[in-house]
């Protein structure tokens, strides 16, 4: 059976999510660390947008974190 990297990444993330299912998550009063700015997945949206624009115009890949559309004639 042939596994490509897409399947491998799915399996790896799935294994991480499934590992220790009983202990996943925290109680509401345990969110102090997760509440820090730097722990937000979109902590620096402008930095990400500027980087994404640069990579979109210089590489054949885009998206993943969010939509792949470019809205730019540079590629």
């Amino acid at each position, binding site marked *: 059976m042939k596994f490509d990297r897409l399947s491998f990444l799915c399996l790896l993330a799935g294994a991480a999510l499934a590992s220790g299912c009983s202990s996943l998550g925290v109680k509401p009063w345990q969110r102090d660390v997760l509440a820090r700015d730097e722990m937000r997945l979109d902590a620096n*949206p402008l930095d990400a947008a500027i980087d994404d624009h640069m990579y979109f115009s*210089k590489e*054949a890949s885009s998206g993943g974190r969010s939509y792949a559309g470019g809205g730019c004639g540079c590629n």
Partner: protein
Amino acid sequence: MQLKPKALPVKAASARRRLMAASCALLSAGAAQSQEPGAAPAGSGLLEDWSVDSALAYYHENGRVTAVEPVVDVSKVFADGQSLNFNATFDALSGASPNGALPSRQAQTFAGPSGKRTYTIAPGQLPADPNYHDTRFAAGANWTLPLTRVDNLSVGGKFSAEDDFISATVNASIAHDFNDKNTTLSFGVFNEFDSLHPVGNTPVPGSDFTSLVRTGGKTKDGVGALLGITQVMTRNWLTEFNLSVDRFTGYLNDPYKITSIIDSAGNTTGYEYENRPDQRTRKSAYWENRVAWTSQLSTGLSLRYMSDDWAVRSDTAQLHLHWSLSNRERYIEPTFRWYRQTAANFYTPFILDTLKPTTNFESADDRLGAFHALTYGVKYAQKLPGLGNRPESEISVRAEYYQQTFNERVPVPAGLQGLDLYPALKAVLVQIGYRF
């Protein structure tokens, strides 16, 4: 009979006022803590309590394009959970843009896209249009609306206009929280509509460069979907996993890119416009992890794999460290990114005049070749006292260095040996930011 409250003794009235004041203080503190950052109390003025994030970026490539890009993003979270976001970007680009042709032992002269001027490239130099310039304005908006306590609907749109390109995108997504809000499942779709009006009209794909066979404006459209899950793993670990697919159809060529036609000795005998397929489907998997190691140090690691039906496969890994200093008043973020892609199955740096390409499609655009790229970056940010009644603001400076290196180099005729046919792209980005 009218009942009148009995007048309280002075001492009791004073005690009641103090009690009421203490209660109000407690309630207002509680309300402030329960709101999201940036949340505005109901009924506050529309222009109050907006969060503003702004940046000015300067981008420069070695001997190629320079860009200046101011960006501003304003957002507001309302007390009922709704949020609004508006953003605007302006780009001004100028410099030399590679046209796709190979360097040659002889000087090469090209007509510019408008056909009104020419430029000459010295022997051994990478052909690039030295008069490239473009401006771009983009604006977007996003509105998030809570449907229930655990469901959010988000809709948005984006519009951008360049001298030769117009794009409009609409998107919508829905997110559902469960497992005590430790898990969020989201699904979103987008639709993009692009209109191209190249300088000098649109070349016919694959046509001879000098014959000027051109048509009018072209369009391309894209549609895509993204399925994501965000999971709180532990008190210090947050993970996100996304699967996405998109499909673009229409005129997918770069109208300014050409391919050299060479003879067996390596002499350039002509050029033709690139000819890409008119549809492309991409699939990607993206996994990001945020982990707080200590009260000062946290990391973000993201991995992405993408593949498309042009045979491009890419791997991306990005790591950034967040190091808080001086009681969280300053922070430093070093970043490292590694990227690798395979070539599109129609990519070719040149066409031998005795051989046709293996398919009807061809492109010498180096963005479709096989290369790897490294990015090194660092960001420094300092918290400042807030403006007006705002608690604080942040000023930052960020610098990145980006370099591409080609991985596969095809055998070339003797006449081209010794020429740098794959010059590495090197770029620097410097950005200052201010948010309040």
